[in-house]
């Protein structure tokens, strides 16, 4: 149960088994930064099916989960391989001419970035919609009838609205947490906080488990309190090939390699076999990786200065 104090440390296998079920709406968030590939791969290994996958940018992790047959629907705002091109496995399930025999088209529900962020905000705030200045004179509302207009109650015209999104489970990656699930993050914050507060269950995956005193020494850095976290997973390099600010760089070479791998269904399946199904967990995935490649992703340190919170007693 969330809310109780005490350790919530679990293995990824146990956290996914307990909190991700067939048919769930799952949000593995993280905008380019801190994407929990480790969680996505465990969901693939546990053969979850009929998931609705929500993410601003589905990225390689949802391309892999779609290729593995986990998804029935995508909710997103930008569907591509950032800096490289297309997500080919998803294209094979969204373009009728590319569909393999026996496969069906994925359902898609698309927004803009602000709309997608707003959906999590409305969900987290328990509001019936999020108003925003977008979509006007765009074909997006015709493509997605959930994007609607409402009259301002203050007599200044209509405003566009998007509905709340309350995922069954949000999975966020970050630099560190304590065993109770108080999560600290720096660098691009994406919508980790909003997705976590909107979700019914939260799995926090971190590079490092730290004592509670470390968290309390820098409370401004906390994005999510243990109060709303159901499971904490300690998973170093758990975001590879995405990155963690200060810990390791984005493996841009892999993002380019995936473009070639994912163009063919057979090559995609072969990659999933080698790097997901036949790998028991993230530690084994990292051990299997080329050590020099991994070392090259370590940045030169650039620590922040520290600030003085003061001792008031």
């Amino acid at each position, binding site marked *: 149960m969330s809310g109780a104090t005490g350790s919530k440390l679990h293995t990824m296998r146990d956290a996914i088994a307990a909190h991700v079920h067939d048919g769930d709406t799952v949000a593995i968030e993280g905008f380019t*930064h801190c994407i929990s590939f480790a969680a996505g791969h465990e969901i693939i290994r546990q053969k979850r099916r009929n998931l609705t996958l929500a993410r*601003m940018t589905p990225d390689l992790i949802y391309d892999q989960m779609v290729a593995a047959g986990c998804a029935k629907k995508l909710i997103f705002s930008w569907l591509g391989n950032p*800096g490289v091109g297309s997500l080919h496995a998803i294209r094979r399930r969204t373009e009728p001419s590319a569909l393999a025999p026996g496969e069906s088209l994925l359902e898609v529900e698309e927004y*803009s970035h602000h709309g997608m962020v707003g959906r999590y905000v409305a969900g987290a705030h328990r509001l019936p919609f999020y108003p925003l*200045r977008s979509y*006007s004179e765009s074909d997006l509302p015709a493509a997605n009838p959930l994007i609607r207009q409402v009259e301002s109650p203050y007599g200044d015209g209509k405003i566009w609205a998007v509905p709340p999104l309350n995922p069954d489970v949000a999975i966020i990656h970050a630099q560190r947490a304590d065993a109770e699930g108080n999560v600290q993050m720096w660098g691009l914050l994406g919508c980790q*906080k909003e997705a976590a507060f909107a979700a019914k269950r939260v799995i926090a995956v971190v590079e490092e488990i730290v004592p509670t005193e470390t968290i309390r020494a820098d409370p401004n850095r906390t994005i999510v309190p243990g109060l709303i976290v159901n499971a904490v997973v300690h998973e170093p390099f758990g975001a590879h090939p995405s990155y963690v600010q200060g810990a390791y760089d984005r493996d841009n070479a892999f993002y380019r390699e995936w473009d070639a791998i994912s163009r063919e269904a057979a090559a995609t399946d072969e990659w999933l076999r080698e790097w997901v199904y036949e790998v028991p967990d993230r530690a084994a995935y990292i051990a299997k990786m080329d050590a020099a490649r991994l070392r090259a992703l370590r940045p030169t340190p650039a620590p922040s200065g520290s600030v003085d919170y003061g001792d008031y007693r």
Partner: protein
Amino acid sequence: MSAPKGPEATPNELMVVAAARALEGRRVCFVGVGLPNIAVNLAKRTIAPQMELVYEAGVFGASPARLPLSIGDPTIVTGSTATVSMHDLFGLYLQGGRIDVGFLGGAQIDRFGNLNTTVIGDYAAPKTRLPGSGGACEIAINAKEIMVIMRQSKRSFVERLDFRTSPGHLDGAAHAERVRHDEGWLSAGPTVVVTDLAVYGFDADGEMTLRTLHPGATLDAVRESIGWKIRIPTGDVPTTPPPSAEELRLIREELDPTGAYV
């Protein structure tokens, strides 16, 4: 302007330099990846040193030490003025009216600067599924001005978009001005389109009009790579001023040393 050393400027270099120069006088620029990113970083090193670079991933005042491959590269964070949540970025910075110019591109553009980044073909059964809006739709509405960088071809400069993701001057200036007024848009719409052949502006009707031809480009090449009858002013069309040696050096040695983009 001194002649560039080394090889002649390529069409992509002409495009990046023309886009960078269009940023003169702008303070806050919403950057995209790829060519817009190089153009904006070039402008900051040349004609617009005070410019604040904003990345949709949640960074205000970025000073990237390397060229980011993705829109969310860690180099945009280190040394930035502010790193914020995407809710703050899209709400406080963009919708709040703090962005002077946004750079957009797309798979298709029409004569009024409307853009398609969503699908080629029918939406429900697309021939090609493109990435979609990302932040483009709200950038088009909330940035004070839009600039576009795109290579031109009959496939991309089309009479009719397959899908309008981001509004430009709609079906002409009269309609666009009415909507902007009635709905409180901050955007004055697209002002500049820079391609590999030319620089275009928009006339009083809100329609794309040729402004300058890049060195080496011809009117025939322009006409042959646009899917409608492009407006060309009467008289001689000026030539886009060629890149300076320093601009080419910055692109070749600092901004894109591996030639990944330009």
